[in-house]
């Protein structure tokens, strides 16, 4: 879970898919049906003539073969490359380092600030100390301007997810009582290689 813009991902897939579908289908039908072949030939010839004409009509100067048309074409290709890089660079993100931050200036010792590390440590320690939980990871995310605590745990095999959820809920609520502030929390209970490997060391039934 991160701040990736998923709509953009899907639009990219949709547009590429439609282009591939249209060109593949057009090429195949042009081969199979003589009528479609004729349409393909005339439309491609028209396009080619238009490009050659545009190229010759927009020559930058008499001396060169370069034209504004080719410049525009290169700019368009460059735009595709830049857009791809921008979209890839913007993937992920959304991590936040601040869960609870109280700036209570009344205190004798001054302002009190509780940072991410405190919540993470408190919950991770409490969880990994429990026998039915193999590993726990806590991080914080910023979603729509609100900090969200994300607790992911891998329980031992055959443990009831309801029990695990209860344990984590209790810990998070205790932390909320301690700090006096509730943080929206997502608990992910995962199955993984570790839980499969540790299955045989489970308690005696």
């Amino acid at each position, binding site marked *: *879970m*991160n701040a990736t813009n*998923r709509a*953009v*991902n*899907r639009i*990219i*897939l*949709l547009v*590429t*898919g439609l*282009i*591939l*579908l249209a060109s*593949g289908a057009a*090429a*195949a039908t*042009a*081969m*199979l049906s003589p009528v479609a*072949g004729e349409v*393909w*030939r005339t439309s*491609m010839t028209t396009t*080619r003539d238009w*490009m050659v004409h545009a190229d010759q009509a927009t020559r930058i100067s008499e001396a060169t*073969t*370069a034209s504004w048309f080719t410049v525009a*074409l*290169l700019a368009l*290709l*460059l735009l*595709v*490359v830049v857009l*791809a890089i921008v*979209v*890839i660079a913007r993937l992920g993100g959304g991590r936040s380092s601040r869960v609870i931050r109280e700036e209570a200036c009344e205190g004798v010792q001054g302002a009190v600030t509780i940072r991410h590390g405190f919540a993470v440590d408190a919950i991770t320690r409490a969880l990994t100390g429990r026998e039915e939980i193999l590993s726990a990871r806590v991080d914080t995310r910023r979603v*729509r301007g*609100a900090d969200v605590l994300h607790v992911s745990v891998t329980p031992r095999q*055959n*443990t*009831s*997810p*309801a029990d695990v*959820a*209860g344990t*984590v*809920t209790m810990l998070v*609520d205790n932390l909320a009582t301690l700090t006096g502030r*509730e943080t*929206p*929390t*997502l*608990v*992910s*209970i*995962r*199955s993984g290689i570790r*839980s499969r490997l540790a299955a045989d060391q489970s308690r005696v*039934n």
Partner: protein
Amino acid sequence: MSTSVLKRVVRRETHSPRTVLAVVVLVLAALAAMYTGIEVVLHLLGLGPLLVAPGAALAWLTMLPDEVPQAAVVAGGAVVAVIGVALVWLAVGPGRRPKHELAVSSHAVVVDNGVIALAVAERVRRELDLSKASVVIGIGHRSADVTVRPEPGQTIDKGRLREIAEAELASYDLSPRVRAHARVVRAADTGGLS
């Protein structure tokens, strides 16, 4: 608590972002654009093409219906079209991950289907006194298949099996709701007793 934020978080956790595929498509598109750009520049500089000059490529495309073995072009076009359909499907489809939301806590809880399956199997095993390998459970988006292979001589009531599995699933309060389907498989060597 801000429920709209949690709703969004749960949705993001239970649905695939399609990031890997989008990155692959973007990288391929960028490479294709760079290659085309290089060919155009080489042509402008009057140098030989890397693979094919832009003009020659256009001419080849125009004469496509008349040239080359037909079958190859049809097959190539079909492959490209199928890839296109797959991409459109992935773009429009829901992309659910094998996870369910549990409504047992005041916080949002998302569980892998594997964890649910193993917990239900454990409960069934204990209630019906079965061996570890004799219970197989598959959890789908809306249904759970509970298959039990009892030991020779052991009788298992299908209705009871279903009840136990339903009770365990109901205690998790999954959304979307999962219904249990029970199946008791008899080993062949039990002589057809049921």
